[in-house]
């Protein structure tokens, strides 16, 4: 009876081996061979070349800054949402998820319209005779695009961990004489760390690897590591180099996952 039920996992076992594990093995295979099929470390070492290491460095810097900005914006927001009455917060959480249903390419493109030299934001700024904002095609515009696209991924896990928190613990802290700051630093924040950790990974990984946001808001001048890999595959057709660079990228993803696993031992901060 039991073994019969295990058969139900058969399709998934097949699927995950065929479409998750084997493809990943292939990235490693292609990353370690040259065009002739001989073993080489060149594709990995290529990350050290000036243009690639620059792209990687820019990606790390921009995704790091966007993650911090997302955190700073999201934490107070999650706290406000978690403190609202149930009826209201269900609606508001939906309001924050709703933008995700509009195609993200179009949403990012709309920022182009807003940020342009004669765009909407500058028109408003000029109306109040304020200095105009020229950030389109700069790193600042890419950061804005990242924060805009990934903010919900930071808000939702933090909101979940705050909403799940036992109110009695907070009340107990107050009863025992802790003031608001003490309660926050010693009770609320430590208890919300699983949410923060999964929020940080949910923002950092897609920001580190994006090529779309930089292509739309950064002009074609700023290349992120994602843009380099995408070009190797779709334009240069150099799969070996593209795979080698992807392996380097995966090392960074795995590092950030290990850090989050250490900080969040129970794995309760998962987005779902």
């Amino acid at each position, binding site marked *: 009876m039991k073994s019969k039920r295990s058969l139900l996992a058969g399709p*998934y076992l097949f699927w*995950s081996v065929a*479409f998750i594990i084997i493809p990943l093995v292939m*990235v490693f295979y292609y990353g370690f061979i040259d065009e002739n099929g001989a073993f080489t470390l060149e594709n990995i070492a290529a990350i050290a070349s000036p243009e690639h290491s620059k792209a990687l460095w820019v990606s790390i810097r921009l995704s790091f800054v966007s993650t911090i900005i997302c955190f700073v914006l999201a934490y107070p927001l999650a706290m406000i949402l978690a403190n609202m009455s149930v009826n209201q917060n269900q609606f508001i959480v939906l*309001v924050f998820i*709703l933008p995700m249903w509009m195609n993200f390419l179009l949403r990012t493109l709309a920022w182009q319209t807003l940020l342009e030299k004669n765009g909407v934001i500058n028109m408003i700024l000029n109306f109040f005779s304020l200095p105009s904002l020229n950030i389109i095609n700069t790193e600042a515009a890419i950061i804005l695009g990242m924060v805009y696209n990934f903010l919900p991924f930071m808000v939702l896990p933090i909101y979940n961990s705050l909403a799940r928190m036992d109110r009695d613990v907070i009340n107990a802290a107050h009863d025992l004489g802790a003031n608001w700051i003490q309660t926050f630093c010693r009770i609320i924040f430590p208890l919300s760390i699983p949410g923060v950790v999964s929020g940080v990974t949910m923002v950092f990984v897609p920001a580190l690897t994006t090529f*779309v946001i930089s292509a739309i808001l950064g002009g074609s001048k700023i290349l992120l590591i994602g843009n380099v890999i995408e070009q190797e*595959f779709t334009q240069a057709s150099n799969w070996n180099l593209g795979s080698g660079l992807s392996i380097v990228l995966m090392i960074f993803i795995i590092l950030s996952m290990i850090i989050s696993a250490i900080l969040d031992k129970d794995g309760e901060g998962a987005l779902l």
Partner: protein
Amino acid sequence: MKKFFSRFYIAIIFVFLYAPIATLIVLSFNKSKTRAKWGGFTTKWYVELFENEIIMEALSNTLWLALLSALIATVIGTAACIAINQMNKAWRTFFMGVTNIPMLNADIVTGISLMLLYLSFGMSFGFSTILLAHITFNIPYVILSVMPKMKQISKHTYEAALDLGAGPVYAFFKVVFPDLLPGIFTGFLMAFTMSLDDFIITHFTKGPGVDTLSTKIYTEVKKGIKPEMYALSTIIFVVVLVLLLIINKSPAKKDKGQKRI
């Protein structure tokens, strides 16, 4: 005072999140073809949208992909959950670990890994390769929505049904399945949404001539987006908004697990 600041802060974030959406809606009524100029009010893009065969085909591809991939992923994922739930710890860890790979890995890596797979096996790129890719990244969403429900269900009701003479299949559909249903529904909905909004993985697994809305928009970014696209996304947005309002207004009992996305 505190309440005022809270409201003010939410309002600012709200403007930040919705400014681009408002922009797109305004652009869908813009008579001029370029985004830079306001040429007067028109609804002609909404009419031309339905006559634009390329966009309509991309829309139908997108919807079929989302529907099929979500359905297949729901079936495979739910079946897997039933089996994984009664496996020993080693197998469970293996399955949950594998499930986490597409969730945590970068989309670009998932995309190119599948592209390399298709290339090595000489598969021709087209609708089916995109569908396989979408099912792959959708299954984890289903498993992660159904698994918590599975754990909540008491084994005793199922055993009681067997004791009372029900066959295993009948007992499952009569006793276990109804309790799983909210989780299955959430999983399906998430899978559908993820498939609908995906660009990166589709970009690497699609063939020439087959386009979803996302890939169509991406190729148009450099040439200039057709205003019909704005009209279409406005329609989609309004439809989803109305659906959400109806769901939120309905007095149906809400499941706690459902709102956690």
